[in-house]
C-alpha cells in the first residue's frame, strides 16, 4: 500500500525534440512545492545537459555558506541530450550533482540504470530537488499520465534490496511493465554515515530481478536521506529507438553499427567486458604493481590470484545473460552473482542477486584491507549496496583503520573491541554493520577517512604527519583504487580532480609509467588538460565512459593519437550532431566540456576551496610513506636515487626516504605549475579572467569571485 499523499502535481508531458524535453521538474520538500522550470537555449548552449545542468542549478541554489545538510542544498539528477538513445552502447547514464558532506563542494556522479532516460521521456531533462521534508517520502513520477506525487514513506524499509523491489512491484501494472520503472534509493548506511551513495535500478527481464547501479562517490546518498527521501520512482512506458526524436537518425545508426561490430569481434581479445566486466583489472593491476594493498602500502600481493576475474567468472558471475544497464549496450559489463546466500547481519540467510563485483569494489573492500576472499567481496558488496554505502570509501576507511591498528596507533579501546588487523574479514563486516546502524566505532569510521584521522589524533595524540601521510584522501574524498606512486601524471590526475581523487577525470598510469609517452612536465600537463576535459563530456550527455576506451578499433594503434581513440571521438561528434541537429566539430565538443570543467573548479572556489592548498595529496600518493613500503621496493627506489645523482652509500632507509620525498614533492610542485598554466589557471589554481572570458562563463558573480584571487 502506498502511503498518504502529501502533494500532487499534474502536467502535460513535453515531447522530446532533438534530445531535449525543454523542462526541468523542481521539487521543494520543505513546503512540498512541485513546479516546472524551462530549460533555456542559453542553458543548453553553455551547460549542454547532465552535470552541466546540475552544476548550474546548484550554483544558483546555494551560497558560499551553504552546508550539505542545509535545506538550500539540492540533488539534481539529469541525463543529457544523447541520453536514452538505444542504438549506441552506453547511452543511459544519469549525472547526479549535490554539495558533498565529505568535501563541502559540488560532487558529481555518473550512474547507469534506467532513471535518466525514463525521466526525460516523461518530459523532464532534469530533476531538481531542494528543501528537507519532515517525514520520509517517496517521489513518484508517472510519465505517461503526467503526474507527480509525493507520498508519505514512513512505513517503507530504507535498504535498497527491499525497497527497490517493493516499489517496482507496487508501481508496475504487470510483470511486463516492470522494465518501465526505475527507482533511486539509498539505505540505512546513508542515514548514519557521510559516505552514503545512491542506487539507481533497472529491471532485468531475463533474471526477473531488480538490479542496481551506483552513484557512489562523495555522500550523495547521505544528502538524499538527510532530505528524508526514501525513494524517487519514475515510470514511463513507450521507449523506442526514436524517443529522443533525433535530427538525423542515420548518423546515430552508422556510428552504432561500427561500435557493435568492434565489440562483437574484439571484446573477447581485449578486455572481456562481456564476460567479467571491469573485474579483469584485478589481475592487470596486480601484475603492474598498481593494485592498492593494505591501505595503498603495496601494489600487489601473492594472494591476489584468489580474487581475480578468473575466480569470479568460474565460480560466481552468471554467464551468457545480457548484462547491460540500458538498452543497446552490447558491452554488457554489469555482472551479477545470482542466488547468493547472505552470511551475516540482518539479512542473513536471504538469497539475493548481487550486482557484484566491479574492479573498484574488489580492490577497495578486499585487497586494500588485506583480505583475499571472493565470498567476502560479494557479502561486503551486497551490504554496501543495500545500506547505500560507497564501496571505495568503505574500503579506504577500513584499510586506514587497519593500518592504524597494526601500527599500534589505535587499539581495542578505540575500536570498541574490534580486532582490526589486515585480513580480518569478520571485523571488516562487523564494522560495516556498525556503520549502517550508526553504532560503536562504525559511527566514527562512517564519517570518512579525514574525520576519522582527526578523531584518532584527538584521542591518541599520534604523529600528525604520519597520519596525514597514510590517510588516503584529498579534499575530504577517499582515493579510488590505483597506486599512483610511480606515475607523476596520475598523482596530478588524482590531486587536481575537481570533486576529489576519483579516476574518472584522468587515468594516465600506463601512458606515463609504462609506455613512457609523456616524459616532460609539458607532456604531462597536456595530458592533464586534454583527458579530464574530454572525459567530462560523457557526464554532460548521459553517456557511459567505458565504450570509449574499453574497446578499441583493430587499427587504433596505427592512428596519430591512439590514446584518444580518434574513431570513437568521431562517433561522439556524430551522435551529438545526429541527436541535436547541430554541427559541432571535435574542437567544439572539447569546448563544451572545458566550460563546465572550469565552472566546477570555480564552484569549489565559491565554497571556500578550489585553490592550490586543496590540491595537496597525502605523501603516500607520491611515494613510500613508511619504512616498510620503501624496503618492500628498495631495489626500485635505490636505483632511482642513484640515477638522480644522490649518494646513497651507507645511508639508512630513513635517510633515503627523506631524499626521495624531497625529490618527489618538488616534482609534484613543478607538475602543479605546469598543469595550472596549461589549463589557463594562475599559480594558485584559479582560472584567470582571460580563461573565463574565452569560455563564455564570465558571469558577473564568477568574475567578482575570481577577481579576489587574481595575482
Amino acid at each position, binding site marked *: 500500500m502506498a502511503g498518504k499523499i502529501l502533494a500532487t502535481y499534474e502536467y502535460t508531458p513535453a515531447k522530446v525534440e532533438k534530445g531535449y524535453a525543454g523542462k526541468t521538474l523542481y521539487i521543494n520538500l520543505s513546503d512540498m512545492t512541485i513546479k516546472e522550470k524551462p530549460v533555456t537555449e542559453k542553458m543548453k548552449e553553455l551547460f549542454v545537459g547532465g552535470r552541466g545542468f546540475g552544476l548550474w542549478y546548484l550554483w544558483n541554489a546555494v551560497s558560499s555558506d551553504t552546508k550539505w545538510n542545509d535545506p538550500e542544498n539540492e540533488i539534481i539528477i539529469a541525463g543529457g541530450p544523447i541520453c536514452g538513445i538505444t542504438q549506441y552502447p552506453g547511452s543511459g547514464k544519469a549525472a547526479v550533482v549535490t554539495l558533498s558532506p565529505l568535501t563541502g563542494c559540488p560532487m558529481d556522479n555518473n550512474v547507469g540504470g534506467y532513471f535518466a532516460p525514463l525521466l526525460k521521456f516523461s518530459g523532464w531533462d532534469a530533476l531538481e530537488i531542494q528543501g528537507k521534508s519532515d517525514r520520509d517520502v517517496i517521489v513518484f513520477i508517472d510519465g505517461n499520465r503526467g503526474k507527480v506525487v509525493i507520498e508519505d514513506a514512513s512505513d517503507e524499509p530504507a535498504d535498497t534490496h527491499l525497497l527497490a523491489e517493493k516499489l517496482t512491484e507496487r508501481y508496475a501494472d504487470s510483470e511486463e511493465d516492470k522494465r518501465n520503472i526505475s527507482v533511486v534509493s539509498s539505505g540505512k548506511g546513508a542515514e548514519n554515515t557521510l559516505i552514503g551513495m545512491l542506487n539507481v535500478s533497472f529491471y532485468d527481464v531475463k533474471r526477473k530481478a531488480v538490479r542496481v547501479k551506483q552513484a557512489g562517490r562523495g555522500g550523495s546518498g547521505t544528502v538524499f536521506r538527510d532530505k528524508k527521501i526514501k525513494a524517487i520512482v519514475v515510470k514511463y512506458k513507450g521507449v523506442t529507438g526514436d524517443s529522443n526524436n533525433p535530427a538525423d537518425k542515420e548518423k546515430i545508426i552508422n556510428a552504432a553499427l561500427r561500435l557493435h561490430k568492434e565489440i562483437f569481434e574484439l571484446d573477447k581479445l581485449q578486455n572481456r567486458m562481456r564476460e567479467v566486466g571491469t573485474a579483469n583489472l584485478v589481475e592487470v593491476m596486480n601484475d603492474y604493481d598498481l593494485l592498492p594493498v593494505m591501505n595503498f602500502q603495496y601494489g600487489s600481493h601473492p594472494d591476489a590470484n584468489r580474487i581475480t576475474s578468473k575466480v569470479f567468472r568460474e565460480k560466481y558471475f552468471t554467464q551468457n545473460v545480457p548484462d547491460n544497464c540500458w538498452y543497446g549496450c552490447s558491452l554488457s559489463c554489469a555482472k551479477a552473482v545470482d542466488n547468493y546466500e547472505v552470511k551475516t547481519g540482518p539479512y542473513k540467510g536471504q538469497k539475493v542477486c548481487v550486482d557484484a563485483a566491479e574492479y573498484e569494489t574488489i580492490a577497495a573492500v578486499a585487497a586494500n584491507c588485506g583480505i583475499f576472499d571472493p565470498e567476502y567481496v560479494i557479502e561486503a558488496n551486497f551490504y554496501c549496496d543495500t545500506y547505500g554505502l560507497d564501496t571505495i570509501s568503505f574500503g579506504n576507511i577500513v584499510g586506514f583503520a587497519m593500518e592504524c591498528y597494526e601500527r599500534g596507533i589505535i587499539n581495542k579501546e578505540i575500536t570498541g573491541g574490534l580486532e582490526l588487523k589486515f585480513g580480518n574479514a569478520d571485523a571488516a563486516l562487523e564494522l560495516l554493520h556498525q556503520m549502517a546502524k550508526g553504532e560503536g566505532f562504525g559511527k566514527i569510521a562512517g564519517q570518512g577517512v579525514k574525520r576519522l584521522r582527526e578523531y584518532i589524533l584527538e584521542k591518541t595524540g599520534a604523529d600528525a604527519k604520519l597520519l596525514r601521510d597514510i590517510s588516503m584522501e584529498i579534499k575530504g574524498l577517499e582515493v579510488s583504487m590505483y597506486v599512483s606512486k610511480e606515475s607523476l601524471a596520475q598523482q596530478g590526475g588524482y590531486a587536481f580532480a575537481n570533486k576529489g581523487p576519483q579516476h574518472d577525470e584522468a587515468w594516465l598510469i600506463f*601512458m606515463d609509467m609504462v609506455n613512457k609517452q609523456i616524459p616532460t612536465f609539458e607532456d604531462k600537463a597536456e595530458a592533464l588538460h586534454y583527458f579530464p576535459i574530454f572525459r567530462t563530456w560523457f557526464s554532460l550527455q548521459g553517456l557511459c565512459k567505458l565504450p570509449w*576506451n*574499453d574497446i578499441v578499433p583493430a587499427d587504433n*594503434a596505427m592512428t596519430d593519437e591512439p590514446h584518444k581513440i580518434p574513431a570513437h571521438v568521431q562517433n561522439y561528434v556524430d551522435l551529438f550532431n545526429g541527436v541535436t541537429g547541430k554541427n559541432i566539430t571535435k574542437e567544439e565538443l572539447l569546448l563544451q566540456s572545458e566550460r563546465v570543467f572550469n565552472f566546477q573548479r570555480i564552484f569549489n572556489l565559491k565554497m571556500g576551496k578550489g585553490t592550490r592548498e586543496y590540491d595537496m595529496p597525502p605523501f603516500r600518493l607520491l611515494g613510500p610513506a613508511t619504512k616498510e613500503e620503501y624496503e618492500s621496493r628498495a631495489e626500485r627506489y635505490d636505483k632511482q636515487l642513484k640515477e638522480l645523482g644522490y649518494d646513497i652509500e651507507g645511508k639508512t632507509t630513513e635517510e633515503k626516504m627523506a631524499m626521495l620525498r624531497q625529490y618527489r614533492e618538488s616534482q609534484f610542485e613543478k607538475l602543479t605549475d605546469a598543469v595550472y598554466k596549461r589549463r589557463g589557471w594562475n599559480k594558485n589554481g584559479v582560472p584567470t579572467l582571460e580563461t573565463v572570458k574565452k569560455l563564455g562563463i564570465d558571469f558577473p558573480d564568477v568574475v567578482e569571485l575570481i577577481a579576489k584571487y587574481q595575482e
Partner: protein
Amino acid sequence: MIKVNNEDMDFTDGMTIEDVLRIKRYSHPMITVIVNGKVIPVDSYSTHKIKDGDVINVIHMMSGGC
C-alpha cells in the same frame, strides 16, 4: 642489450616478443607491440625473434574502470 619502453633490457639469443612480455610482466590484453617502428601482429608474438639492439615499444591502452 635491447630497449623496451625506453629502458635497457638484457638480450638473450632466440628471444621472442612473448618472452619480453613475460619478463616485463606485461599482461595487459590491450597492448600494441612496435619493434623498430613496425607494428607486430598479435599472432606472431611467439615466433617473432628479437635482435640485439632492437628498440621495442609496448604501448598499453588505458582501459577498464579507469
